[in-house]
C-alpha cells in the first residue's frame, strides 16, 4: 500500500508539478500559442464549414425531397445521390487529404480554406439528409392545404413546410455541428495547427502527455457545451410561438 502510494506521488510529481505546468503552458507561451491559437483555428474552420454545410445540405435536401414528392428534378437528384454516396461512404480524413494533396496541389492553397471546403462538403451530405427527413416528416396535408390555397410548390415549401421542418430538425442539426467540430481534429493530417494538433505539439516538446491532452479535451468539452446551450435557447425561442 505504502509502495503504491509513493509510486502514485511520484507519478503525480512527474507530470502535474508546478514546474510541469510552467513547462507545458507558460514557457514559450505554449498555452496561448498552441491551445488558444489552436482553438481559434478549430472554431474558425467549424463555423465556415457549418455555413457551407448548411447551404449545400439545404440545396441537396430540397432537391431530394422535391424529387420524392413530385418526381421532378430527376437529373439533379441523381447527382445528389452520387454526392451523398461518395461523401458518406469515405472517411473525412481521406476526403481532407484528397482535397489537399490531389485537388489543391499548389502549395499556395490556404490550408484553412481547404479544410473548410473539405469539412463543409462532408457536412453538407449529412445536413442534406437531415433536411430531407425534416421535410418528409411534415404531414402531406400541409402541402395540400398550401397548394389548395393557390401557392405553388416553391411557395408552399418556403412559407409552410420549411418553418416547421427546420424547427423539427434543429436537435439533429445541433448534433451534426457538434460532430463536425470534433471531426476537425483530424486537420493535423494536412498540418493545420488546430486544437488537437496544438496539444500534440506541446506533448512532443515536453514529453508530458497528460497536461496538454487533458487541456485539449476540456476545451473541446467547453466549446461543445456552449454550442449545445446556444442551440437549446434558439430551440426554446422557436417553440414559444408554437404552443402544442
Amino acid at each position, binding site marked *: 500500500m505504502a509502495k503504491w502510494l509513493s509510486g502514485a506521488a511520484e507519478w503525480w510529481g512527474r507530470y502535474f508539478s508546478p514546474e510541469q505546468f510552467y513547462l507545458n503552458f507558460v514557457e514559450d507561451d505554449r498555452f496561448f500559442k498552441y491551445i488558444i491559437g489552436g482553438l481559434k483555428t478549430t472554431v474558425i474552420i467549424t463555423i465556415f464549414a457549418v455555413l457551407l454545410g448548411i447551404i449545400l445540405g439545404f440545396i441537396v435536401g430540397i432537391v431530394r425531397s422535391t424529387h420524392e414528392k413530385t418526381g421532378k428534378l430527376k437529373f439533379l437528384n441523381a447527382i445528389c445521390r452520387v454526392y451523398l454516396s461518395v461523401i458518406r461512404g469515405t472517411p473525412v480524413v481521406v476526403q481532407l487529404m484528397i482535397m489537399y494533396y490531389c485537388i489543391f496541389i499548389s502549395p499556395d492553397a490556404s490550408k484553412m480554406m481547404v479544410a473548410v471546403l473539405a469539412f463543409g462538403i462532408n457536412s453538407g451530405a449529412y445536413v442534406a439528409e437531415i433536411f430531407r427527413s425534416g421535410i418528409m416528416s411534415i404531414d402531406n396535408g400541409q402541402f395540400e392545404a398550401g397548394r389548395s390555397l*393557390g401557392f405553388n410548390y416553391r411557395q408552399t415549401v418556403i412559407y409552410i413546410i420549411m418553418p416547421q421542418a427546420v424547427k423539427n430538425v434543429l436537435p439533429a442539426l445541433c448534433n451534426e455541428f457538434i460532430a463536425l467540430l470534433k471531426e476537425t481534429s483530424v486537420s493535423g493530417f494536412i498540418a493545420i495547427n488546430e486544437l488537437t494538433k496544438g496539444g500534440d505539439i506541446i506533448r512532443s516538446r515536453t514529453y508530458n502527455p497528460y497536461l496538454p491532452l487533458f487541456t485539449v479535451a476540456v476545451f473541446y468539452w467547453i466549446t461543445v457545451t456552449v454550442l449545445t446551450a446556444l442551440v437549446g435557447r434558439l430551440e426554446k425561442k422557436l417553440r414559444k410561438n408554437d404552443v*402544442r
Partner: protein
Amino acid sequence: MDDILMPQAKAPVGKKVIEVKGLCKAFSGNEVLKNISTDIKRGEVVFVVGPSGSGKSTFLRCLNLLETPTSGEIYFDGTNICDKNTDIDKLRQRMGMVFQQFNLFPHMSILKNMTLAPVKLLKMKEEEADAEAERLLKRVGLSDKKDAYPNQLSGGQKQRIAIVRALMMKPEVMLFDEPTSALDPEMVGEVLGVMRELAREHMTMVVVTHEMGFAREVADRVMFLDGGDFVEEAAPKEFFSNPKSERLKAFLSKVL
C-alpha cells in the same frame, strides 16, 4: 354587409362553372373513378355521397387537381385544368378547399393562417387582410381566437377556421372533403352551421359527406357515387325518399 360570409358569392347563378368529361382515375392499376361526367352550375350546392372507398374524395380532389386524372377533362370556368399549359395555381386561388383533417398551419397564429394566402397571392394589404379576417372570425364566432394557435383550438373551431381561411381568397367554388368526419359529434353542428350559411348565400359548393340529414337539408342536388361511377343523382327530396337503383336503396337503408 356584416352578416354576410361571402358578399362576392352572389354571382350570376346557373352558368356552368365546373364541367367534368370522362374523368378516369386509377391508382397503380386500381380503377377508382370510371369515366365520370357531370356539370356543376354556379351557385349550386352539390353533395356527393356513397360508401367508403367509392372514390368520393378522389373525385373531389380531382376537381382542383390535388389528384391528377388518368384521363378525361375537367373544365373550370371554361379552362381545361388538366391541360399542361394551364396555370393550376392561379385556378386553385379561385377554388377553396376544406379538408377532413383541417390542415391548419400549426406554426402560425389563426390570423396569420387566414391572411397568409391573400397577402402573398392576391397582394392584399396586410391591414386590409387583417380587417377581413377579423370580420370573418366575428361571423363564425371566433373573434377571441385570432391570436391563438391551431393546437389550442377544438376540432370544431379548427374546421370553422379552415373554412374562413379558404374564404379569405374569395373563392368562386368551395370543395368540402368530409369536413365533419374527424369531429366529435357535439362539434359537428357548429361546422354545418357555417356551411349552411354559405349555401344560403349561393356559394357554389361540392360537398363529400356522410351527413345525410344535412345533405337532405341544404343540397340542390345529391349524387350517389358507388364503384367509381355516379349511379344516381337527384334533388335531395327525390333522392332520399324515392331512390331508383337497388344499390342506392341498399346504401340508404344502411345509413339512414
